[in-house]
């Protein structure tokens, strides 16, 4: 009896009021009118800087006004004032957890415009696929790790970020930068893979695979995780198609669409991999799809390691390839070409092109209009995050405030990409 009293007084101390059972009926009833509260723009559980104005009926969301744009960096307008090569650093900052994929997308759009698509050396294509798939893995690791952390599974976050760091270190060895790689160039990649890269990658993939097994053990049968994810933020197949969803979100909803399979580019036709497709379209399915894609990406990478040919990593076309430094310093021809490439930019013939690749979040498209000068007349990016965010209002409506967190986590809105 004494112990009970102690707990009651402790509750009163902590909560500053009586226990719920002790309240009279009128006090228990919540006020009947709707309440408007802000979630974000700066909220620890919001990916990127996005604001949601929630209208709630008690704990249930009646309306959610999603307001992106806080990270708008004028990617498209800035590109009009940069040479085609100078746009690469801007693309790095689109989806900043998988910058290599953005690099590849931009390069492919310009190459299409220049008619270079078929001339990219095989080795360069393989390198692009390798760095791209590593980026896809880092993308999914971040997405899953962060979402799990927001649901309380902090260990998962640490495990996955540890694995991500191994891969970032690999990419740093390739490009010199941990995050903002700017590694791809129009016509190939800037330099060859470092010595022993493939062995290191192979070793790291084994390590990452172990981490994935660990995390699957922690999450897949975890009651809390499943309760928070299953049935939350459902999207039907039709809705996914109607709203333009792509990537893991569309696949979770049962849309069997992967650009790598349906509009094959680069060396993907030579590689064997499966596209996981979900059934329920809820957050749990999105999680499972991403987990499976991690494994498929690793499968692709292992094939690439085995198949990558030797040779050049840059197309042998003087319109786009910088001359070797030795020649630049010693011959006037190479000096002029170098100068022109750097100062005036690669001359892209007038025209327009659109290419799309499978980015971390789905179909990532780049549109370029050229006017024959060294800079784009217009650049446009079809960023999957932006499209996916447009479904957010629908997805969160009817759920609890707490469900906004897993829904947003699984939409994987990346501010840089969404706000461009």
């Amino acid at each position: 009896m004494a112990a009970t009293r102690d707990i009651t007084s402790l509750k009163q101390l902590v909560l500053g009021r009586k226990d719920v059972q002790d309240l009279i009926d009128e006090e228990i009833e919540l006020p009947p009118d709707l309440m408007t509260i802000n979630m974000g723009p700066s909220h620890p559980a919001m990916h990127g800087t996005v604001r949601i104005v929630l209208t709630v009926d008690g704990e249930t969301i009646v309306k959610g006004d999603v307001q992106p744009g806080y990270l708008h960096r004028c990617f498209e307008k800035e590109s009009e004032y940069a040479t085609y090569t100078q746009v690469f650093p801007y693309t790095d900052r689109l989806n900043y957890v998988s910058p290599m994929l953005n690099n590849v997308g931009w390069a492919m759009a310009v190459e299409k415009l220049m008619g270079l698509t078929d001339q990219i050396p095989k080795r360069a294509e393989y390198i692009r696929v390798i760095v791209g798939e590593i980026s896809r893995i880092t993308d999914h690791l971040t997405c899953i790790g962060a979402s799990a952390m927001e649901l309380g599974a902090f260990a998962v976050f640490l495990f996955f970020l540890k694995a991500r760091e191994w891969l970032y270190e690999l990419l740093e060895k390739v490009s010199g930068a941990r995050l903002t790689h700017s590694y791809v160039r129009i016509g190939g990649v800037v330099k060859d893979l470092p010595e022993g890269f493939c062995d290191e990658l192979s070793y790291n993939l084994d390590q990452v695979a172990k981490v994935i097994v660990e995390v699957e053990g922690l999450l897949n049968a975890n009651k809390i995780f499943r309760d928070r994810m299953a049935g939350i933020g459902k999207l039907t197949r039709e809705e996914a198609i109607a709203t333009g969803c792509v990537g893991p979100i569309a696949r979770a909803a049962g849309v069997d669409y992967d650009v790598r399979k349906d509009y094959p580019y680069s060396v993907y036709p030579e590689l064997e991999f499966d596209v996981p497709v979900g059934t329920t379209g809820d957050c749990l399915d999105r999680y499972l799809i991403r987990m499976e894609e991690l494994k498929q990406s690793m499968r692709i990478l292992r094939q690439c390691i085995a198949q990558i040919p030797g040779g050049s990593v840059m197309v042998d076309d003087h319109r786009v390839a910088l001359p070797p430094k030795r020649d630049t310093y010693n011959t006037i021809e190479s000096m002029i070409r170098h100068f022109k490439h750097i100062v005036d930019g690669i001359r892209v013939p007038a025209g327009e092109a659109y290419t799309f690749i499978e980015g971390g979040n789905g179909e990532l498209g780049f549109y370029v209009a050229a006017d024959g000068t060294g800079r784009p007349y217009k650049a446009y990016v079809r960023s999957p995050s932006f499209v996916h965010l447009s479904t957010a209002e629908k997805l969160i409506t009817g759920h609890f405030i707490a469900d906004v967190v897993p829904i947003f986590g699984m939409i994987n809105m990346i501010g840089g990409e969404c706000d461009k």
Partner: protein
Amino acid sequence: MTVVGTPPAPPAAPPPLAPNTTTVTLTIDGQPVTVPKGTNVLEAAKELGIDIPAFCYHPGLPIVAQCRQCLVAVEKNPKLQPSCQQVCGEGMVVHTQDKQSTLARKQMLEFTLLNHPIDCPICDKAGECTLQKLYFEADNEDSRVDVPKVEKAKVVDLGPTVVLDQERCILCSRCIRTCDVVAGEHQLEFAHRGEHEVLTTAPGAQLDNPYSLNTVDVCPVGALTAKDFRFTMRAWELEATPTVCNGCATGCNVELHHKDERAWRIVPRHNPAVNKYWMCDEGRFTYHDLREQRLAGAIVDGLPAGWDRAIAYAAQRITAALKDNGLAVALSALAGNEDNFALAQLAKSWGLTRVFVGALAPIPSRADGRLRVADVNPNTAGVAEICRALGLEVTTDVTGVKCLVMLGDTLDVEVTGIELIAIAAHERGPVIKAKAALPCADWAERAGTITNNQGHVQRQHAAFPPLGHAIPAWEAVVRLAQATSVKMSFTHVREVFVEMTNTVPAWKGSPWVREARPLQLRFAGSRG
């Protein structure tokens, strides 16, 4: 032994002339084009948008076909023809992209690059160099040279304005012809032969004609550099704004090259009616004045003041002088049409019938029958026209004048004892003594028009915003008008222009030219 035989048959009678004898029609790369008789193939191709590369050809200079860079194949002609020299003929069929002429041009370019120094990083022409442009567009092949380059003099002081780098020179002779044609003085010549050939002046002579800097413009490479511009600013970082030179009454059309609100050089802009492709050296240096002794804020009684106080003060002085019948206005032959018109109209509203005109004294020695004239005021004709249209008499008599509202910083009448209200861009001359000085935009900062000695009303575009607190002079006039209760409501220079063209009969119906946005030279392609 002399063979006497039948003489060769006389040439067949020429085909009957086409009914239209002033034009010829030819085919270039499969496209027909009709051009005036006498046009060369290179210009005809330009009509079709086909840019035939060339170094020595310049539309404003005699043709020498020296660089052989513009070779094209003309059907029924066994050898390639330099398209700059080849006059278009009726029914001629020209190929510019065929294998033979493309190869020939590539090889010519390789020859040109043979001894060219690797100077791009330190060359002032880099970024606007014709050699760079043509190499990148038409050749873009690797070097095949494995012998040292011929060494020549790197710094040859040709005269007061120009420095020559003989290694960079590709011997196109454009500069020689420019001196001949534009200045009428043969000051440059080639010396030596073969790979030792160099551009030079005669021993003891200098390149010192007043049009010498045109040689720098026409130089397709960085061989000739202006002492005024070399090593100061990279060409590709500049922006170009089309405007009109303020140096004299000729009104040469120019481009002002500027960056970050600072002017770096002036180059001529093609206008067949005024200056063709050229301008004089003095005109090029006028941009320095844009930063000299500028009035950046209003001044009242020798001390800095805000705009509102300066205007209120000026209005009070003007009103007092009006009561005493002692007010006068001075227009300026150095200011634009709009500025002068606004002030002239205000003078009319104040009830004045006579105005002073501030102007620099003519320099008779300048007049050379070419571009330079004695009158060094850019807008003498414009001010005269405005005064005529508004019925204002130009005077130099200062008797009875107590307060003088003057535009600009030039006035050649005695102003001792007169209260000056100056609307000026520079703090010098009479402006220093002004009771109130209102800062206004200088010519590079001003959008508007000026009228040259031929009567052309030419548009000046503002390259950058006025310095400090300065505003366009017409705007200062509007503020003065409102402060003295005169109804004047211009809010844009275009409104002043429209009102002016409606008022001045000579300019009736002149169209307003839309604002030109500065052109980034970096992305304009090398214009060579």
